[in-house]
Each structure stands twice: as C-alpha cells, then as structure tokens.
C-alpha cells in the first residue's frame, strides 16, 4: 500500500469525524496562530525601530554630551581640531544645537520655527543640499556670522515667489541674512523637514545662550574603522570630562545589535510558549487518537484479516496524526497572518516572516509524529482475532 492510499484513508477518516478532528486540531491551531501573531508583533515593532536606526547610516557615530554641570565644555572648535587631527579616519563632523524661534520678516510672523545650529558638513551628512545660494561656510563659523539657510517651507511662507536670498529675517529679534534655500525634502509642508532654518552653530550658541553643544554627528570614512574611531572619540571626551558618565558615543551597528539581542530573546520566549502550547496540543492529540484506536479496534481487526500489514495500519494512523497536526498548523498560520493584518497592523507595521511559518508548521508535524506514534503503534500491534471479537 502506498503513501497516497494511506493519505486518502486518513483524510476520509478525518473527514467523517469532522467535529472531533477539529477539536483535536484546536490545540495546534491556537499554538501556531499565537506564534505567528506574536512573532509578527515582535518583528513589526523592531522593524520600525530598525528602519529609523538604519536611516542613520552604518558609518555614523552619534556623540551625546550628558554632563550638565561641567565648565569644561567641548566647543565646535575643539571637536573640529580633534577631527582634523584624525582626518584619516573621520571624513565629516557636524554639531547640532536645536532650538525654536519666532521668525519675523516685514509683517509676517511665524512662531516656533525649528532652528538648527550646525556646521558646513551637516549638508553632506544629512543629504540636505542648497538649491539656491550657498550653504554655511567654515568662515561663517569662525566669525559667528548671522546668516541663515532656509527650507522650502520657510521660503514659501515668508517670500512666496520672490527670491529670499539676500533678505534679512529676524529670529527672536536678531537679524539674519538669508544666504541659501535648501532643496525640498518631504513636500514642503509646515512642521515637516522643510520647515527649518539652519544657522552656524557658533552663532546659535550665542543667540540661544546654550553654551554647550550636546550632540555631534561624526561620519567615519571606512566602515571597518567605526569601532576604532569610536574608541578614539571616547578617549578624547574622557580627557575633557574625566568621567565616562559624561558622554555617550553610539554607532548604529551597536544599536542594531542590541535590538537584535532583544528580538532574539523575544523569539526565544515566544518559541518556548509555542513549544509548551503545542506540546499540550500534542497530548490532546494522543489522547483522542488513543480513544479513536479503541473505537476502531474492530475496523483494525477487519483490515488485518483482509491483508493489512502492521506497517499499513501504522502508517494509516501516523498519517492521520500528521494530517491533523499539519492541517491544524496551516489553519493556525492562516489565523495568525490574519491577526497580523487585521489587528496587529493597527499598532505596528505588519511583518511576516516565512521562517516562523515554516518553523511552526514543521513543529506541528513533529508534534503529530511524536504523539501519533504511540497510538499508531498500539493500533498496528492489535491481535487481529481479539480485535475482531471486540464489540
């Protein structure tokens, strides 16, 4: 008797016991659906974080100054001197000071406009280039020039069709000369990436009275030097602050690693839950199959009398168990995927990992194999005469 025949027999017998077969499957269905939905949630939430971190770029180091009480600050010039010294490793560096200002041009006033104080390299690091005029120059930094580069949203709001270059706007009352307009980035709406004014960081420190620059972004020329450069920066910062708690240097790979660790742990926990729930489902399957073997004792006797071998009976019951768990696994996957798209997608982007599907389906089959073998073995070894006498 071949596999196809056994499969047909198994399906027939499962189908003629629909209700019970479904109940038998339920444990597997719930287990698999839970795994798919939970991993979908985990992957969805990490993917959105990963995306934002990856947009930073792999060669970027982000330096945060945490120390607030120190009078030993690191200024743009200090950091610039350091990066110039290490020009073989570091290709670019930009500080950032973030602020908001009330902006005034003639009679137009706009409140809470996003102002970034930074350096010439900021354009390259953040891919924000000018479409008109020029960007901040090193000279502007040195002389704390009151010049500004504006985003398209600001340009539209204050100048409409007229050319803003050369005009003077007031940021919190201080006049700045516009020297450039940025290329449009995200549609030019209010509050978006284009609603921004960029000024030299040295000027910003003075205007906003924020003496300390809290953030530096460093671009490392070769990705294999990221770790080395990071260590170098940390040494440099330690010399100034004499405390490791005063600063943090991140690279995006590091953050991704941490995130991967978390995802891995999450997967492990989910996997554990899945294993337990599927084991419980498996015990249910074994239980019901044992009942089924007892109920079908006579059938088994008849089959043996008319020529079924042990192996035929064994494979018939094994395949029945595998079809039940396999079908349960498939239904569970469908329900899990449904849950990801219908429910979980409201919270995080829907992510479906085929690996988890294959894994949970495979595990369902393994459960069928594991818990089907004992009842099937019992069925195959029934004595045909006693089985035929069974009422």
């Amino acid at each position, binding site marked *: 008797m071949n596999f196809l025949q056994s499969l047909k027999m198994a399906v027939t*017998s499962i189908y*003629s016991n629909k209700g019970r077969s479904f109940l038998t499957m339920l444990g597997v269905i719930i287990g698999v659906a839970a795994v798919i939905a939970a991993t979908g949630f985990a992957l969805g939430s990490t993917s959105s974080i990963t995306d934002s971190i990856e947009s930073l770029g792999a060669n970027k180091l982000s330096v945060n100054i945490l120390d607030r009480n120190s009078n030993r600050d690191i200024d743009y010039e200090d950091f610039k001197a350091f990066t110039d010294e290490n020009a073989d490793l570091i290709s670019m560096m930009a500080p950032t000071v973030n602020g908001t200002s009330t902006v005034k041009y003639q009679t137009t006033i706009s409140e809470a406009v996003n102002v970034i104080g930074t350096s010439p390299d900021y354009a390259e690091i953040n891919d924000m280039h000018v479409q008109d005029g020029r960007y901040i120059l090193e000279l502007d930094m040195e002389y704390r020039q009151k010049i500004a580069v504006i985003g398209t949203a600001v340009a539209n709001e204050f100048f409409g069709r007229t050319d803003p270059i050369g005009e003077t706007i007031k940021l919190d009352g201080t006049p700045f000369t516009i020297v450039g307009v940025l290329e449009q980035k995200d549609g030019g709406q209010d509050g978006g990436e284009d609603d921004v004014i960029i000024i030299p960081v040295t000027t910003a420190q003075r205007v906003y009275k924020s003496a300390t620059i809290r953030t530096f972004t460093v671009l490392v020329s070769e990705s294999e030097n990221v770790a080395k450069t990071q260590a170098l920066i940390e040494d440099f910062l330690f010399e100034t602050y004499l405390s490791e708690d005063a600063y943090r240097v991140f690279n995006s790979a590091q953050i991704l690693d941490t995130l991967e660790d978390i995802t891995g742990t999450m997967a492990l926990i989910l996997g554990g839950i899945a294993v337990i729930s599927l084991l419980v489902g498996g015990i249910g399957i074994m239980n019901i199959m044992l009942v089924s073997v007892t109920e079908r004792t006579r059938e088994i*006797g008849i089959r043996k*009398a*008319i*020529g079924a*071998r*042990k192996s035929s009976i064994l494979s018939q019951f094994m395949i029945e168990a595998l079809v039940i768990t396999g079908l349960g696994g498939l239904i569970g996957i469908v329900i899990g995927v449904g849950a990801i798209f219908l429910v979980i997608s409201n919270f995080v982007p829907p992510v479906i990992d085929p690996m988890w599907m294959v894994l949970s389906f495979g595990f369902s089959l393994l459960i069928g194999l594991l818990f089907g073998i004992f009842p099937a073995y019992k069925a195959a070894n029934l004595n045909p005469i006693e089985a*035929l006498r069974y009422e």
Partner: protein
Amino acid sequence: MTGLVDINNMKKTYVMGSNMVRALDGVDLNIKHGEYISIVGPSGSGKSTLMNMIGCLDAPDSGSYMLDGVDVSDMNDKELAEIRSEKIGFVFQGFNLLPRLTALENVELPLIYRGYSHKKRREMALEALDRVGLGDRVHHKPTELSGGQMQRVAVARALAGNPPVLLADEPTGNLDTNTGKEILAMLEKIHDQGNTIILITHDKELAGQAKRRIEIRDGRIIHDEEVRK
C-alpha cells in the same frame, strides 16, 4: 486436484484465568483445490479457532500447517499478513464491513493492501460485486443495505482478489432462513465456478450443500465424510 491445506496434529490452548480451554486438540486436515467443505459442530467446539488457523489469523501452539505448498507454521506477522492478503478470503458471521465506506470501497480494500492500481482495483471490485448480484448497489453504504446484501458485499470482498480459499464462518448466522439459503446458493454457484470454499456452521442442515462434511467436537475432528447427493 492438488493439496491446498495440509494440517498435522494442530493444537491450540487458550488460557482464561485458571481455565485451560483446548480449542484445538490435535487436528489433522487435508483439503484439496476446488473442494467445498463444511465444518460443523456445536458452539464452542473449536470451529472458529480452526478457521483462524486456516486463515493465518492466529498461530497454533503446535503442529504443522502447509498452505498452498507453503509452510506457514513459522511465519512472522508480516509474512502472515501477506499470506492472508494473497491466499485467503474471509466471510464473517457479522459481515464486518467498514461502515463509512461504500460497497465498492469495501470490496476494494483488500486489493489496496495487495497493491493493485486504482483502475485495476475498480475493475476487479466491480466484477466481484457483479458475481454476487450487487452490480447495481456499488455506491451504497452498508447501512443502506439489507443483511443479505451486506453479506453479499462481504463475499464479494473475499472473492475480489481471487484467493485460492474462501473461508466463511457461519455466514448465515445473522440472516433469516430464506436469506441464508440465498447466500448458500450463491456460495454453491461460486464453488461451481472453481473456488475452494470452507463453510463453517453449527447447523447440520445448512451444511448439506457441501460435498464433504467435517464434524468437530471439543477441538477434535470426529467425522470426515463425502456427502453424496
């Protein structure tokens, strides 16, 4: 006619608690191809036990058994299953059809275990159902058939693979007298077409159809005679 069944000094004892039941107590039996034999005896005399031995469903405690030229005394489970599949057709008192399968599927079942292709199986099963006069009921489930029809399906199932021996253990026991006679007439016809039939019954009258009658009591053969009509 050549030897089909050759049993020598076969013994089988069942132990039920402290009771020992000698179901077969030294049976010698020779059956040739093409015979129609009845085995009669009171209930509990060992008829079914003998049939199970002939049908290779059970192994004796001692004695030898050659079936169709093959020594089956020392065969293992797997070999016995193959022998049953190839050489034996069983008809039981209680029909023993699988209730969820149609008549056709029931008849096909032994052919599946023999490994015939789907097409060949269909062909053989339909032919067997035709032989028992059920060509028009092939898609009925057992519950949709009368007792006589169910037993015909069972006979068709036993015949389908053309085994050399047809073993019928009280095939009329669950049927009314007339239907029982119909089944016996059918067996007679099948015998006339060349099949070897071993009919077990406790009813001496029913046994009258057979050409040779064997009487068994307390696990021993006490009569073995040709019946002249």
